[in-house]
């Protein structure tokens, strides 16, 4: 298989397989988790302003009082790389084209120089987060193979995408194929790893907000 054939495979069958596993995986995992159900709370509810599932879905995006100071790297680093990833994936021109090909929807893109800069900042934030995971006793203690693996699976697509656009290290065709392949690995891994928090965090926040909201506590 030459470079072009490899690229063609990643853009064709490879992409189909990855998107297929991703979609079925997400669906399966959501069913697996949320059909477990829960018991109805029979205690008389107490109503309080701001105490509900929906409130917590939004409120938990901000650090609770005092927490930013206790763990600034987690919050600031976390914000930067999450927002960075969202900008790159949803506002980069080639990605919008891909989405348009897949589902037919499209929207204006940001300039490629800006996306490139965002990729650099995102990678920097991810490296800082990695260093924090290694340095901080609690994070190191909690970390398993999955934490290192999912970090790499998320980092490599950003790195290869940026390197492809900057024409670094490898010929563009090769680097682009590697970039697409790594993104496909990410899609396949996502539903079956902690990366799935991107889906379940809404449910988790909602349950937490709802269970405590029943008691009149905005959490």
């Amino acid at each position, binding site marked *: 298989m030459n470079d072009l054939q490899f690229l063609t495979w990643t853009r064709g069958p490879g992409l189909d397989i990855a998107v297929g596993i991703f979609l079925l995986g997400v669906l399966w995992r959501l069913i697996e988790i949320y059909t*477990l159900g829960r018991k109805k709370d029979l205690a008389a509810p107490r109503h309080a302003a701001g105490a509900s599932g929906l409130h917590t879905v939004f409120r938990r995006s901000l650090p609770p009082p005092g927490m930013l100071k206790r763990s600034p790297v987690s919050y600031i680093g976390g914000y930067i790389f999450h927002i960075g990833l969202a900008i790159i994936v949803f506002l980069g021109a080639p990605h919008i084209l891909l989405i348009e090909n897949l589902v037919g929807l499209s929207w204006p893109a940001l300039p490629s120089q800006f996306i490139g800069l965002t990729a650099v900042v995102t990678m920097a934030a991810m490296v800082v987060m990695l260093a924090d995971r290694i340095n901080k006793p609690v994070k190191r203690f909690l970390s398993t193979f999955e934490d290192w693996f999912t970090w790499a699976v998320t980092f490599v697509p950003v790195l290869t995408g940026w390197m492809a656009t900057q024409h670094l290290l490898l010929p563009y065709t090769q680097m682009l194929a590697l970039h697409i392949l790594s993104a496909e690995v990410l899609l396949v891994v996502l539903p079956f790893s902690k990366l799935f928090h991107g889906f379940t965090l809404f449910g988790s926040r909602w349950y937490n907000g709802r269970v405590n909201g029943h008691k009149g506590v905005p959490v």
Partner: protein
Amino acid sequence: MSATLEKGIHALKEVIDAPIASYFESCVHCGLCAEACLFYTETGDPKYTPIHKLEPLRRVYEQEYTLLGRLKKMVGLSKPVTDAELDQWQELVYDSCTMCGRCSLVCPVGNDIVYMVRKFREGMAVSGHVPDGIRSATKRTVETGGPMGLKWPAVANVLKHVQENTGLTVPVDKEGAEYLVLLSSMEIVNYPEYIEAIAKIFKKAGISYTLASDAYEATNAGIQIGNSDLAKVIVSRIVDAAERLKVKKVLSPECGHAYMAIRWEGPNLVGRPFGFEVVHVLELLDELRQKGVLKMKDKLKDPLILHDPCQIVRRGGVLQAPEPLIQQVAENYIPIADKQKLNWCCGGGGGASAIHTEEAEALRAKAFRIKKRQIEEAGVNTMVTFCANCRITIEEGFDHYEMNTKLLGLTELLAEHLED
């Protein structure tokens, strides 16, 4: 696998629901929950990270309820939960978790960690991995009526003294009263002034109430141990008495977990909504304050801070009553930074104060440093709280650190300054 372990694992499988599955799937190992846990902040030991305390439960979830986990289990790639492991986890689930719920307030993906600890304790209880102190408190509650082994004649004796001291009659088993008043053993034994306070305030407000000779104890060690069957037996006494005496409301004492047990867990334990309302004593007092019934003859001048008991405030939802009440009676109330639902636990909740091993007591003393710091930073010599269990734990902390801080109960403080 031993029979008790099998039962324990079965209990864990039973308690796993959609929220727990969602929580485990959402955890990204960021460790922020550790920053909210006093056992971590005061020791710096990562093993006290709240989410780590649930590791055996997480593995049961993964191995029983996820496709990948089941596959891994089939080919022998997963690590089964063992008796030895649960034994090791006892310290993490009981000694070093007061079920204060502060972690549930900070988790960025929204995990309600304390919800999971409560459920995890069900499996720990069934598999026999419960600290002796909590186990015997539960046994005494089931057998004698209260965790301290206190029987009605002893309670009646305390009530006699209350009547002598106040000149008021304390009604017992009176049908049709508005309130059934519950007590906690700790109040009966250590703080009978609480009962005097209640008698005075009810008289002043002109509200009818009664005690029940077969349901005076509000605490529920079954909940602390994590055994729903025992918890149900204990809470049913109150429900039966309230229905027999046809009261409109049941008054929970200050005691934090008693309130949790009767107000929030109670209907779920007996399996039906209550036909009566459960009111925390501070909610009643605040209502009386708003009606203008709770007038003070004078105010306490000492600068003081408030310790908000976790099970009443953060986990019980009595958020708004405490501050106006303390302001009603104290001239120099100083609000602290982490107050109300963000307050730090005393270190003795969730049954922890009943564990008397050397290690558990040493750990509690360490965890108490956070309260010590709050008091020192505010520069006060007085702290007010409203939970008998917090009071015992805090007094122990004061003794340990040889502090001269005064600790007052809010209800008694109000009664003491009540207009005659």
